[in-house]
């Protein structure tokens, strides 16, 4: 008899499990080897606690009531639960805190290849280490994790989460108008972006062009110069931040993994400063992401700078398979 399971979920059978387990172990070895202790947190949390971290990811959360009528939610990532954990359990401990996890998370998305409603994330959180050193350490761990997974062609995009928020403020665009421009930028809808910007009062053609041109700058160090030539104090500050991060990455010898990307804009609300995204040429989907969230812990009552990343384990596995079959040839 065939018994169905909910869309976006799946069983894992031994052949796949063996490979996933091997991948898990390789990743945890990298994390533990760099002093990141593995933690687990409950899959269900109080909705109020998760929403404190980020109201927007809560959009796609699974929610339900317990026997007392309290609203519970399935976690949609591990960053918020770990912020909660650190604020609660390590409030009086000396930072920095280095934690890692391999855990399932849940989002009510439309299931498709590489994106399920229940999925596994592998990642680290470095809490209490400010930019640029903290960021560079996280990128270094990420690079080592990608190597351990056999994805030596994978690239880490490095951008700045504050760039457009501040740029639009500099241009005098605020409130709902700013949010709607940011949304276009996050979706990379350039046609919509131009239309949106030119419909705004008080923003001139040159500012509109600056915004669009910035979002297309990606590549090596030269894009920082190109960005600076577009001008403005906000751009100057953002490129200085990226430049500084890049400097520490060079010292750590992982700068060659990084592609500077001024168009990067992750749509999670808690990011500030550096943001990361991971790509492998063998896969059309993003493998994972992360960045700094210096204001997140504050929302839980512990004011510490923080950074981290999460890889989608199943997608890493798909990329691993594609890379292997590529090496073997058709």
């Amino acid at each position: 008899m065939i018994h169905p399971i909910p869309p976006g979920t799946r069983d894992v059978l031994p052949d796949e499990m063996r490979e996933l387990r091997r991948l898990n172990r390789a990743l945890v070895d990298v994390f533990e080897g760099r002093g990141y202790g593995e933690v687990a947190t409950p899959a269900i949390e109080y909705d109020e606690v998760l929403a404190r971290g980020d109201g927007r990811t809560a959009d796609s959360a699974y929610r339900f009531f317990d026997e007392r009528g309290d609203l519970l939610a399935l976690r949609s990532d591990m960053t918020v639960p770990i912020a909660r954990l650190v604020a609660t359990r390590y409030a009086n401990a000396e930072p920095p805190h280095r934690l890692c996890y391999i855990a399932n998370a849940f989002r009510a998305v439309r299931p498709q290849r590489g994106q399920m409603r229940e999925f596994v994330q592998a990642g680290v959180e470095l809490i209490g280490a400010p930019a640029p050193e903290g960021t560079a350490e996280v990128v270094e761990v990420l690079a080592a994790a990608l190597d351990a997974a056999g994805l030596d062609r994978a690239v880490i995009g490095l951008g700045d989460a504050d760039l457009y928020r501040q740029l639009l403020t500099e241009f005098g665009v605020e409130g709902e108008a700013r949010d709607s421009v940011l949304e276009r930028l996050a979706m990379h809808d350039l046609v919509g972006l131009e239309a949106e910007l030119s419909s705004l009062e008080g923003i001139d053609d040159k500012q509109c062009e600056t915004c669009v041109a910035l979002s297309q700058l990606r590549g090596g160090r030269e894009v920082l110069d190109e960005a600076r030539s577009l001008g403005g104090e906000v751009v100057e500050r953002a490129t200085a931040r990226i430049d500084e991060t890049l400097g520490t990455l060079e010292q750590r010898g992982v700068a060659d993994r990084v592609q500077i990307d001024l168009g990067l804009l992750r749509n999670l609300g808690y990011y500030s400063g550096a943001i990361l995204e991971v790509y492998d040429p063998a896969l059309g989907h993003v493998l994972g992401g992360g960045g700094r969230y210096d204001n997140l812990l504050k929302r839980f009552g512990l004011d510490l700078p923080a950074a981290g990343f999460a890889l989608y384990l199943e997608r890493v596995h798909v990329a691993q398979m594609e890379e292997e079959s590529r090496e073997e040839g058709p």
Partner: protein
Amino acid sequence: MSVEVAGMGRAKAEGPLKLAVPRGALFGETLDALDLAGIDTSEVRGESRALIFPGPEISLVTMRPSDVPTYVEGGAADVGITGKDVLLEQSDRMVYELLDLGFGRCRMVLAGRKGDKRLGESERRLGMMRIATKYPRIAERHFEQTGRQVEVIEVKGSVELAPLTGLADGIVDLVATGRTLEENDLEVREEIVTCTARFVANRVAHKLRSREVDQLTAKLGEGVPR
């Protein structure tokens, strides 16, 4: 001290860039635009029944316009061309929209039978209209944004049939010249949005093959009438 930052060097772009070409209404103008951008389309224009036309720098993959976002989102095509109507209808597909190509201009409209008050009448007496369409999500969004409740009926074929047979009070459909509406005794009641052909890219290809994608965007952009 200058250490090379070579994220892109690491992920060597392999093989030609795969471009999804829409067959159907946009086909001819898409090929013209590609010619202008210096891409050889003679093979595609030929009698061949093939679906894929390999080239040294760019391979053309031909498909239904509504499949373009699917292939591009999944990375099976790196870039593609399709109508804004398709992108709006599949707005949950995560593709980067890089350029308005300007051709294939048509309007998404709400239309009803000429002189027929049923659209308004249904709303007044039944509280809701029945709307037949091939674009259920665009239709739903339009009525939601204008604060009206409708029953959207999805049909696959000639949507003009629906109000003529009494299946629906009106239709939401794409109109180029308006001749089909005219021939079926229908008229435009509301304009929803103007649609043109768009150049789209896969997220990862946009990052890892940035030079090729940017060059192609620029070349296609030169051909767009201002």
